């Protein structure tokens, strides 16, 4: 079965982020979305440690230990960008000022519950960071993840078995197989990877899916 690569997934998410959007990209896979935002589109990247207007990584040798992102990697500030303290930074999130956040996930439930901070393993040291604030704060919450675990189980589930990050907070799921909206009427498939029929996706996913009205396939491959 054909699957979107990580770059294709990132490009697909980037297509849904319009000019003028204020966006927080979570650590890990979502960070790759930045590489696919068109240069001519002005988009404001927020990093929760205290900057808006985040630019790309600096050239080797130009790193500044006082200018880092939430993943503690060196970054740059675009012209017009701003610094602020942590309470202001989280007010941007918690106060509903961010248009989008993109997060990784272990599981998403059919009702949009998100589990992405803890596996629940008994001896794991818990660490949450800003995940719970992002989950409830942005106007639209996008999740980007593999459709299945390495063992082949669907990561889209009826009920999350991992500890929750947020309740009914996810709006759209981008996987290596499909783009799926979380709606009050249930999960609606927007598109599938080239050659993957709706019925096969539904079988793999194992929770009820509905066919979106304009459902199509292969949009990433045809658009990039």
């Amino acid at each position, binding site marked *: 079965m054909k699957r979107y690569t990580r770059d294709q997934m990132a490009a697909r998410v980037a297509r849904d982020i319009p000019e003028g959007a204020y966006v927080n990209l979570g650590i890990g896979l979502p960070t790759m979305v930045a590489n696919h935002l068109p240069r001519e589109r002005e988009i404001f990247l927020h990093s929760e440690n205290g900057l808006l207007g985040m630019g790309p990584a600096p050239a080797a040798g130009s790193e500044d230990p006082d200018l*880092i992102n939430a993943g503690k990697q060196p970054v740059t500030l675009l012209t017009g960008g701003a610094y602020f303290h*942590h309470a202001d930074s989280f007010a941007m999130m918690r106060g509903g000022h961010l248009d989008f956040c993109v997060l990784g996930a272990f599981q998403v439930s059919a009702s949009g519950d998100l589990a992405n901070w803890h596996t629940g393993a008994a*001896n794991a040291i818990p660490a949450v960071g800003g995940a*719970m*604030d992002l989950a*409830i704060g942005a106007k639209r919450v996008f999740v980007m993840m593999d459709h299945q675990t390495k063992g082949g189980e669907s990561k889209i589930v009826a009920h999350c078995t991992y500890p929750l990050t947020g309740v009914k907070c996810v709006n759209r799921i981008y996987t290596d197989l499909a783009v799926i909206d979380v709606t009050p009427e249930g999960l609606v498939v927007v598109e599938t990877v080239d050659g993957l029929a709706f019925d096969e996706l539904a079988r793999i996913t194992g929770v009820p899916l509905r066919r979106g009205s304009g459902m199509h396939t292969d949009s990433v491959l045809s658009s990039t």
Partner: protein
Amino acid sequence: MIDKTVASTSAAVADIADGATVMIGGFGTAGMPSELIDALIEHGARDLTIVNNNAGNGEIGLAALLKAKRVRKMICSFPRQTDSYVFDALYHAGEIELELVPQGNLAERIRAAGAGIGAFFTPTAYGTPLAEGKETRVINGRGYVLEYPITADFALIKAEKGDRWGNLVYRKTARNFGPIMASAAKCAIAQVRKVVALGELDPEVIVTPGIFVQRVVKIDVADELSTPQAAA
């Protein structure tokens, strides 16, 4: 004449008592007041409760304080990092208590302490394990969790410039928790790279007004900014 500058880091932390709650600024190593932490280690206070976003990196700064076994409890949002092995070992050995707080709640609880707020309702963590045992309320159809302020006896923070009245400006993302911790602690101690004359900081851009700052200590840094590798 009011002069909040203190001659040395050791003098600045000399009255931090055993059992104190100490906020330490910084996100990872950006904004971490390493010299003040070194002075605190030297000073010897123990049984401390430390508030920081993380739980130390490598064996410097906060990690060194943990390694010296001076900390009874950590209040933080993200202890587990690739280089947090000092904390990890203490945690697995049961030698340190952890209060895990979502990052925005950590910031807002610190801000609330500085602003005199008794408690606040926030949607963050509603319905998750981190809200277990906490008071909740549904307001306009949305679930909220009651959170209380985090106060502290001392705050150790790092700023770029300060003056003798305690006015501060910061540098880039090293600002992070500095301003809110300064307002939340009974005694805020700022280490700065430069002490400037009164009036030299533009009143329009002072980030932390001196009312929130009790002590300012100048740290001699060997041209840190032009050699970022050395400071990383």
